[in-house]
């Protein structure tokens, strides 16, 4: 494999790279490329940040009582509505 990786090649591996799924050899080539290429550094940092921000989405906790109630009615399970949810 060519030791010198261009921006286009980096871009097609970028997703696997941030997931840590590339071979050590390819990782090394990418890291080498990143030391020399400001643009690719920005792309990779902003890609990581993008994924991070989506990971930080607040988890909405529980269904509201109204939604749960309508669901149980629709499923004809209304007799179990008053049981505390587990």
């Amino acid at each position, binding site marked *: 494999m060519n030791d010198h990786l261009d921006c286009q090649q980096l*871009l*097609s591996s970028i997703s696997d790279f941030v997931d840590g799924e590339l071979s050590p050899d390819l990782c090394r080539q990418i890291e080498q490329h990143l030391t020399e290429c400001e643009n690719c550094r920005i792309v990779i940092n902003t890609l990581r940040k993008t994924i991070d921000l989506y*990971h930080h989405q607040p988890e909405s906790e*529980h269904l509201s009582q109204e939604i749960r109630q309508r669901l149980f009615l629709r*499923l004809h399970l209304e007799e179990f509505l008053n049981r505390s949810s587990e």
Partner: protein
Amino acid sequence: MTVESIPEISLSVEALRKGDRHELARMVDLYSDKVYRLALKFTNNPQDAEDVLQETFLKAMRALPEFEGRSSLSTWLYRIAVNEALMLLRKQKPDMALETPGEEDDSEESASSNGLILADWCCLPEDELLSEESRRFLDEAIQRLPATLRSVFILRDLEGLSIRETAELLGLTETNVKTRLLRARLFLRQQLSRYFGERLKQWEQK
């Protein structure tokens, strides 16, 4: 969190298949939060998400006698929910790009370095990145993804499923999932770069 992380040991699949109503109610309580949240991510609309929620459990209850247990119950429910969500989106926008041409090709074309926005907005302060307005933008940006890419992104990056789980759930190969994930992430990076690039300019002028 993965679909596997819900304790389903406490449910009796045997009872569910026989239509035991008490057990069905327990199943609904155990999985409804997750199904609703997933639906909300797909549709970005509480009413639509509730429709998907109801349809998912209706379908599941009808299909349970046929459930063979080849996948776990949670994966099975997730698959129904994803299909319901996609079906609803398709109904609302029949012209929606469900298949994006050429996506099974090498990712070269889609991942072209031409036209990449190169604003380095990582340094923006957290309260800017995590503001309510930014959150709304993030949610809307997902809705701009073609449905095929959106499914992969939601399951992998929002729900935290593995590549293998995502592939299994959507009936895709792992290579396919990776290609779509790459395209989805680059698309969203581009959207966020446009948005936060503007923020960055304003912030630097302060």
